[in-house]
């Protein structure tokens, strides 16, 4: 039985240097923009989403995770030609759900991280599809196989990235 929400938050909340909070999302946005230019494969990966999930399940604070997800998503929207808010809405939801889940289950395990990232990548895609198709009236190609592969790749990259980000954790 996993620990209850309040007890896990009190026990395992992590803290990071403030510079890490600022630079990591910016680095994720920049790398996403730059690497997609040279490697078409990189279009499947969503580094800002992985950063959002990581800090949500690490901090275990739904409010801060929601706000962080919204800010990162709006920043990602700013690099596209879509209206601001498409990625903002999806990442705010993912941040809230990730933090809520991180409060209830142990997310230190790599297997758990893999499943969490896989699931929340699908959640973001579903929210994006709903916003694009039903709120903005824009075409959105949905093929299950493609979305599952995309979620799997993000989950694998996420496990590696989370391990690297663990190194920036503040020692207590």
């Amino acid at each position, binding site marked *: 039985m996993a620990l209850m929400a309040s007890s896990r938050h009190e026990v395992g909340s992590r803290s990071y240097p403030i510079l890490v909070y600022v630079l990591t999302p*910016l680095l994720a*946005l*920049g790398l*996403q*923009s*730059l690497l*997609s*230019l040279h490697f*078409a494969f*990189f*279009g*499947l990966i*969503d580094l800002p989403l992985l950063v959002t999930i990581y800090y949500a399940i690490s901090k275990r604070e*739904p*409010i801060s995770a*929601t*706000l962080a997800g*919204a800010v990162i998503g*709006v*920043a*990602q929207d*700013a*690099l*596209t*030609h*879509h*209206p*601001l*808010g*498409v*990625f*903002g*809405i999806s990442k*705010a*939801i993912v941040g*809230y759900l990730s933090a*809520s889940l991180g409060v209830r289950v142990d997310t230190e395990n790599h297997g758990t991280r893999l499943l969490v990232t896989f699931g929340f990548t699908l959640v973001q895609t579903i929210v*994006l599809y709903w*916003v*694009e198709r039903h*709120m*903005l009236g*824009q*075409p*959105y*190609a949905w093929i299950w196989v493609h979305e599952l592969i995309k979620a799997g790749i993000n989950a694998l990259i996420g496990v590696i990235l989370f391990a690297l980000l663990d190194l920036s954790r503040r020692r207590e």
Partner: protein
Amino acid sequence: MESFFSRYRNALVLIAVLLAQVIGLAVQVRAPGSGTGDKGGVRLIRAWVVGMVSPPERLLHAMGRGVRGTWSNYFDLIHVRQQNQSLQAQIDALRLEEASLAEDARQGERLQALLGFQEKYVYKTVAAQVIGTAGTEQSHVLFIDKGSADGIASDMPVITPDGIVGKTRDVFDHTSQVLEISDATSGAGVILQQTRIQGVLRGNSWGQPQIVNVSPDERIKAGEPVVTSGGDSIYPRGLAVGTVDRVVPDPEGTLVSVLVKPSANLEKLEEVLVITNTGSAMPSEMQDDLSEAQQRASDILAERLPSRADPNAPPTSAAQNGTPQTAPPPANALPTPPPKPPPPLHADHFSPTSMVPAEDLVPGQRMANSTTPPAQPPAGNSGSGEPPHRTGNTAGNPASGVSPAKKTEPTAGGPASPNQAAPALSHEPAARSKAAPNTGTPQNGQKPAAKASQPDNGQKPAPAGSPPASSTPAPQPTSPQERN
């Protein structure tokens, strides 16, 4: 009440954040500004994010270019000499082709002026480096390292030498956002080059450009070139877009969509050109290029044609037969007029003096039977191996010493009809090829050279293995128009 907010604080914050963004989306979609780009706070947010992300991208891109430049400039220079030679040959071929198109371009410009059609010529372009993308599958957007400080504005076409890329959207001081033609929200007026079917090009959900809402037409085949039509007031007419990939039916109706394979490699873009200025008149540089291309093409042809007088060549068979030869002029001699063609060795159908009057012609009777039988070429003149009727045409009009081309040369005041211009095309290269080695100065106003490189009624010598002259000549055309 207080307990309600404290109990559902997290969910309330999420709802508030989502509500704020939904309202923001509604405002942006309802008032998208002037069609492209954003205004107010949205533009400010975009400028901030781009301002934070683009400098590192620019730095990394410059570092990458430096490494690649070091490799390509110092280590990867193998076979450069061979490449240079092949490129030089390619330049010569392109000059010939350009010269052949020059007259068509000028004629088209005159006709467009007569019809009042507004053609757009590219006056000025700005080269830019691609430094980033949107980074998502749903947004086909590029970032370039040039902005409003470099003269770039919204809705300017972005191209590569291979084809169009897209148009500028949001323009910042030193960075611009380019919306690719593969995006679903883009749009470009295009036309199929052969079937002349027009349509609107935009990307589909998978990022492949397609011409939407096209009536089914069996003439549309894969591989047909697609160019811009100029109807969107953004892209100049005639820019390469791509080729037809395949035709797919529209699931929502009876129309079809034509999938287009873009000419520009949208997946691997490094440098692009932004067209910053266009105009309705042909720029002076282009006019100069056309004139220069014609002049250089005539020089190239003069060097290539085998009729060029080579001072070091051994005596020809014509010299052995007693035909007077012109000695090569000294290096400091003044330009001399082109030598007159030698008289014909036998009577032919094209010399005015040997032409049968029209009233003497019998319907159905072969021309060869009504005139003097063709004489067999002398033994010493068999080098060409040409049939008699062909060698006779080489001389043009020996009586006047003026080739037929001179008579049909169009005047400078207006375009000549194609039927009139055709004989001039076929006879000029020989005159140029003889004059060029002596004078070294190209002749202005001459007709396109590439057209003249076609088989030109006997001026081109036959290959060594060509069959000997037949005793029964084939039916001959009786007018220059028919011959061409």
